[in-house]
C-alpha cells in the first residue's frame, strides 16, 4: 500500500514536471529566436559599421563594391506603417463604433463575421488582388510608368490591419460601463453624442492597444507588400517602387551568400528590435488599461 502510494506520488511529480516543461517550451522558443537573431545579425553590423548600416542610404548588395545601408528600408517601413495607420485607424474605429453601439442586432450579426473573414484571408491573396486590381488602377489614376509603389503598399496594408483594429476597438468600446452611457442620456445627450463624446474617450486605452497592434501587423507584413511595392531599394517616396524591412529580408534570402546573407540577418534583427519595442508599448498600454 505504501509502495503504491509512493509510486503514485512519483507519477504525479513526473506529470507535474512534464507539464512545466511544456510551459517552458514557449520561453525556450522566444530565447531561441532572440538568440539566433542576435548571433547571426551582429557580425554583419560589426563588419559594416553600425552607423553605415543604419544610416547608409545606398543598398547595393550584389554590386562589385557592395554597399549595405538600410535607411531606405527603415524609412519605408516607418512611413508605410504610419500612413496605413492614418488611413486604417479612422475607418476601423468608425466601423467598431457601428458594430459596438449603433448597428441593429441583425446587421451586426452579419457584419461581425464579415470582419472575421477579412481577418482570415491569407496575405498572399491580398497581394494577388493588389497586384492585379490595385497596381494597374494606381498606374492609370496617377499616370505612372509603374503602379507597384509605396502608395499601393499603403492601401493594401491599411486594408490588412482593418480587421484587427475593428475587433480590438470593438472589445474596448463594449467594455465601457453602461452607467456612463446612462448618465450621458440622463443629461440629455443624443445617442451619437453619447457614443462619440462619452464612450469613445472612455475606451481610449483599449483603442490605443488596437492602434499599437495595427502598427505591429503592418510593420511585420511581408508577402502582400512584396507583391505590390515594386521591391526596389529606393528612399521612400509615394509613387516610387520601394522595399520594406520585411521584403528586404524575403526578396534576397533565396540567392544570398556571404556578407550579403549576414546583412539580411542584421535587417531581421533591426525588424525584431522594432517589433519588441512595439510589444513593450502594447504591454504598457494594456497594463494601464487594467488599472
Amino acid at each position: 500500500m505504501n509502495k503504491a502510494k509512493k509510486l503514485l506520488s512519483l507519477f504525479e511529480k513526473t506529470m507535474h514536471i512534464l507539464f512545466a516543461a511544456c510551459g517552458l517550451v514557449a520561453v525556450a522558443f522566444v530565447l531561441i529566436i532572440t538568440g539566433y537573431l542576435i548571433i547571426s545579425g551582429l557580425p554583419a553590423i560589426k563588419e559594416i559599421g553600425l552607423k553605415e548600416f543604419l544610416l547608409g542610404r545606398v543598398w547595393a548588395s550584389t554590386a562589385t563594391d557592395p554597399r549595405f545601408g538600410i535607411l531606405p528600408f527603415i524609412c519605408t517601413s516607418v512611413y508605410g506603417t504610419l500612413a496605413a495607420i492614418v488611413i486604417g485607424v479612422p475607418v476601423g474605429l468608425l466601423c467598431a463604433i457601428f458594430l459596438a453601439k449603433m448597428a441593429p442586432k441583425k446587421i451586426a450579426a452579419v457584419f461581425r463575421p464579415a470582419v472575421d473573414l477579412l481577418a482570415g484571408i491569407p496575405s498572399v491573396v491580398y497581394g494577388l488582388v493588389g497586384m492585379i486590381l490595385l497596381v494597374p488602377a494606381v498606374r492609370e489614376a496617377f499616370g505612372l510608368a509603374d503602379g507597384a509603389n509605396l502608395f499601393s503598399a499603403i492601401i493594401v496594408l491599411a486594408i490588412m490591419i482593418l480587421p484587427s483594429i475593428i475587433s480590438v476597438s470593438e472589445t474596448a468600446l463594449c467594455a465601457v460601463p453602461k452607467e456612463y452611457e446612462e448618465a450621458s442620456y440622463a443629461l440629455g445627450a443624443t445617442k451619437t453624442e453619447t457614443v462619440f463624446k462619452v464612450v469613445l474617450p472612455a475606451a481610449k486605452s483599449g483603442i490605443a492597444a488596437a492602434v499599437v497592434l495595427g502598427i505591429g501587423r503592418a510593420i511585420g507584413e511581408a508577402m502582400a507588400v512584396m507583391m505590390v511595392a515594386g521591391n526596389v531599394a529606393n528612399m521612400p517616396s509615394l509613387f516610387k517602387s520601394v522595399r520594406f524591412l520585411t521584403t528586404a529580408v524575403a526578396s534576397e534570402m533565396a540567392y544570398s551568400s556571404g556578407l550579403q546573407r549576414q546583412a539580411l540577418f542584421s535587417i531581421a534583427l533591426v525588424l525584431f528590435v522594432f517589433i519588441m519595442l512595439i510589444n513593450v508599448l502594447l504591454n504598457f498600454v494594456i497594463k494601464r488599461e487594467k488599472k
Partner: protein
Amino acid sequence: MKKTSISVKRRAVCAAENILMYIAVGLTTLLLVGILCYIFYRGLPNITWELLTSEPSVIRGINGILPNILNTLYIILFTLIIVLPLGVGAAIYLNEYARNRKLVKIIELATETLAGIPSIIYGLVGLLFFVQFCSLGTSLIAGAMTLVIVTLPTIIRTTQESLKTVPQSYREGSLALGAGKWHMIRTVVLPSSVNGIVTGCILAVGRIVGESAALLYTAGVANEIMGIIEAAKPGSGGSTLTIALYMYAKERGEFDIAFAIAAILLLLTLIINIGAKLAGKKLKK
C-alpha cells in the same frame, strides 16, 4: 424627449459623425464584397477536376495543384500533432499546476511575445534553426516545426480560456473521491474543456492555411506528389497552397491558377471561420 431642444449645431455634428460612420462601414463592406466577388469570379471558372487531381507537368502541359493540396494537409497534420500536446500541456500547467507566480508571468509574457512576432522572422529563424542547425533540410517537417512556434500561442490561449470555465467544484469533487491530480485532469478537466481545444485547433489550422512568409524558406517551393511517409522525412520539401499561389503569381505570371488557388483558399477560410464560430458557440453553452 423633445427633439426641438437640440440646437442646429449639435444636430449637424451628430449627422456628420453618423455619415462618416456609415461611409466607413460602407467602404469596409464594399471592400470585402468586392474582394470576394472578384476572386470567385476570376478563380472559380479555373477550378477544374484536372487542376485538383494532377501534378504539374511541363512536358505534358498539365497544370495541377494536387501536390500543394496534399502538402498543405501534411503540414497541418504534422504541426497539430506536435503543437497540440505542447500547447495543451502548457495551458494545463499554467492553469492547474503552477504555484510559482513569477514563472507563470514569464511564460505568459513569452506567449504574448511569440504572438506578436511577424511570420517572416519565424521563417528566418526556422531556416537557421530547423533547416540548418537541426539539419532537417528544406522540408515539410522543418516548415511544420516553424509553424509549431507560430501556432503555439493560439493553442495555449484558447485552451487556457476553456480550462478557466471548468467549475472549481468539478475539481474538488474529483479530488474528494480520491483521484490523483493527473487522473482528475484527464477524466474531469480535459473532457469539460474539449470545445476550447477544438476551437484552438481550428484557429491554428486557419493560421497554417494562410501562412506563407514562414514557409517560403523552410518548406520550399517544390511541386511533387508525396506520400505521407515520404513527406515526413527530413529533406523532402514542398509548397503549400499559399506558397504555390505566390510562385504562380509573382514568379511565373500564371494568374489563372493563382486565382483558382485564391478561390480555394477563400473557401477554406470561410469554412474555418464558420467552424470556429460553431465550436465557440458550443463552448459558451
